């Protein structure tokens, strides 16, 4: 008896963290109790991306999308929907503007503008079953490439498609492949960079967890194109589920002969090995990654020579990231023109973004290049949390810049983001609202870069540290006007002088916030004020006379006795002695104490 209904449970790390494993168990138990296990099946898929509303359960073919499913609602879904054919209304997505319940995934604004190429199988197939990948045209592209195309032909398609590296730099993938192909060597390598380190970015993890074969297939095609025989997937140890699924995928692909010797009966041999990284952010830089695989310290070396000339074990090596590889098979199957028809003039196809921060719908979205920041934030993202005012969006991870409201209508592509002093990076997108202090934000990102710097070159090791110290000074209210000049000059020099991409971009958050939010810097330095009320040392506490009833509670808790006033009369804070501990603010029961 064919299965007539399937319940797809999101098995991404996010949903698993909110107990989707248990939801899956309950669904199976209940279905068994209803004697439907032969007709209805429950399976775990990759990430649906809508992490804000997880755990996700999607019922097919009915095409009903349940959100925030817990054990109890899982039982209800079986009792109502599976057994009686009635959609269980309680766990449908509710459109906040209209209060309308939306059962269909594609009608939910979060998904409306998405085009899923890299994420095509995430949430659709069982990532631990190679047959489902094959059923979804998996490995057809590899078969086509090996049996019908020359390596040059493959490179040509990828070049014409306009695919650019999705890991950060945006270098044209076909050009990179061509350079590696042209390097003469009997041994060459393909490396998949799965050392996703940008805070908040998890598209690579999602792809590895949800569709590992798409990466293996992309790697094999790249290997054929450049003439490599062996590949490494460098994945961070913090991604146990991705590693687990990759291992399964590799062994299944080997069993079917899709990895190994004489693939598709041709001369082409290719196999891959997983290398587990220790989670150093810098190992996402390709030369550092190579050093790490070789057993050396994960630190970058000077380019040129590029890995395409001298790479792993001194052999020509092609490195692409996970998302880039995941795009390859569809390009081969659907053609360069199809891919190039999506996106902007210089940035083709789609990009996966990890939407985070002060936005209603946090999650993973795959959108066509050229979509505007506003569309992502306000339509897919559902706008700013709590109806607050948008202040900036930070793209590109710790090395990106902060883009203010006036550029919200900028079509997103590599070049536009760079022109705005930010970057595409691996696709992190963090939204900030009026409560965020931009000086503090710059400090936050710089702290990350300081911690993750490999310490090799002076500019990054000492330069970033000094930048951070100046920012600390400013946020502590000790900044002087000269510090602002120094900050800008040093930031520019660090960018210009650093050895690798980390140092060459780490000052971006500083420079972009100085460019777009200079008034906030001025407020901190000149007026000793933090307009967003974030920098603790700059907070000032006031008593609102209209609200103060003179209960004396604040005066009693003040550890430095700077609150004065007679009982039943309005109190006053002597700000000169105030140590900004916030005790009065917490104690006042009348909301009479404010800080800014």
């Amino acid at each position: 008896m064919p299965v007539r209904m399937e319940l797809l449970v999101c098995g991404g790390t996010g949903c698993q963290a909110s107990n989707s494993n248990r939801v899956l168990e309950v669904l199976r138990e209940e279905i068994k109790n209803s004697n439907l296990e032969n007709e209805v099946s429950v399976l775990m898929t990759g990430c649906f991306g809508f992490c804000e509303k997880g755990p996700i359960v999607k019922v097919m073919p009915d095409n009903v999308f349940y959100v925030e499913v817990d054990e109890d609602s899982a039982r209800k879904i079986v009792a109502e929907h599976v057994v009686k054919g009635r959609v269980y209304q309680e766990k449908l997505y509710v459109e906040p503007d209209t209060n309308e319940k939306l059962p269909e995934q594609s009608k939910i604004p979060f998904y409306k503008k998405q085009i899923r190429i890299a994420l095509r199988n995430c949430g659709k197939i069982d990532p631990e079953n190679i047959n489902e990948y094959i059923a979804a045209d998996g490995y057809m592209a590899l078969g086509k490439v090996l049996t019908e195309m020359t390596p040059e032909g493959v490179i040509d398609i990828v070049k014409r498609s306009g695919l650019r590296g999705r890991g950060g730099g945006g270098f044209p993938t076909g050009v990179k492949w061509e350079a590696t192909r042209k390097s003469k060597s009997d041994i060459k390598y393909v490396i998949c960079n799965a050392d996703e380190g940008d805070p908040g970015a998890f598209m690579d993890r999602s792809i590895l967890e949800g569709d590992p074969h798409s990466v293996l297939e992309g790697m094999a095609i790249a290997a054929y194109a450049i003439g490599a025989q062996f590949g490494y997937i460098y994945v961070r140890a913090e991604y146990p589920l991705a590693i687990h699924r990759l291992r399964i995928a590799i062994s299944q692909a080997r069993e079917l002969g899709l990895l190994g010797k004489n693939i598709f009966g041709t001369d082409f041999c290719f196999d891959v090995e997983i290398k587990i990284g220790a989670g150093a952010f810098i190992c996402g830089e390709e030369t550092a990654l190579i050093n790490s695989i070789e057993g050396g310290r994960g630190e970058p070396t000077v380019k040129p020579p590029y890995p395409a000339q001298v790479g792993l074990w001194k052999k020509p090596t092609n490195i692409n990231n996970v998302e880039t590889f995941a795009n390859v098979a569809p390009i081969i199957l659907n053609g360069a023109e199809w891919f190039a028809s999506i996106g902007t003039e210089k940035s083709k196809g789609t990009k996966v973004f990890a939407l985070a921060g002060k936005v209603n719908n946090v999650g993973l979205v795959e959108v066509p290049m050229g979509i505007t920041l506003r569309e992502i934030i306000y339509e897919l993202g559902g706008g700013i949390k709590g109806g607050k005012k948008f202040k900036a969006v930070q793209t590109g991870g710790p090395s990106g810049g902060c883009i203010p409201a006036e550029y919200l209508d900028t079509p997103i592509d590599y070049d536009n983001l760079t022109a705005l002093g930010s970057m595409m990076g691996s696709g992190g997108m963090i939204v900030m609202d009026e409560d965020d202090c931009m000086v503090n934000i710059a400090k936050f990102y710089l702290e990350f870069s300081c911690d993750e710097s490999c310490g090799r070159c002076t500019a990054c090791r000492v330069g970033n540290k000094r930048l951070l110290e100046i920012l600390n000074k400013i946020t502590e209210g000790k900044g002087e006007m000269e510090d602002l000049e120094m900050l800008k000059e040093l930031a520019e020099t660090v960018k210009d002088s650093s050895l690798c991409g980390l140092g060459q971009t780490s000052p971006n958050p500083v420079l972009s916030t100085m460019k777009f939010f200079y008034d906030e810097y001025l407020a901190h330095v000149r007026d000793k004020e933090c307009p967003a009320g974030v920098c603790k040392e700059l907070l000032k506490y006031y008593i609102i006379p209209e609200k103060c009833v003179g209960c004396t509670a604040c005066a009693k808790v003040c550890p430095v006795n700077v609150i004065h006033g007679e009982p039943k009369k309005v109190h006053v804070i002597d700000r000169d002695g105030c140590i900004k501990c916030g005790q009065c603010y917490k104690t006042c029961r009348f909301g009479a104490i404010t800080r800014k």
Partner: protein
Amino acid sequence: MIKSLEELKKIREQYKDTLQNREAEEKNIKILVGMATCGIAAGARNTINAIIEEVRKENIDNAVVVQTGCMGFCYAEPTVEVRMPNSEPILYGKVDSERAREIVKRHVKNGEVIREWVLRG
């Protein structure tokens, strides 16, 4: 071991059905089977399974078979509604597994409405 593109295609065909349900959004024919208590009591389970089997057998890959709640024709259960693109939905009554297979073959595949079983439409 896969040693040629043909062998891969064979596996693809073999497992194609596993994704049928999940590709529902891309399909333009919808077959709804009333599966409320009344429907089930009248044998709708057999009906829906027969429809699915027949759809697969006939290689109709643009049809979705879904269950639905009570359509208000309890006297005529099991009920089946066929929605073809660019035409009004047709509701059949008293669809046992035999009728079900006929509906798939004649209506869904060949576009022929089987008038004598129609309840509405």
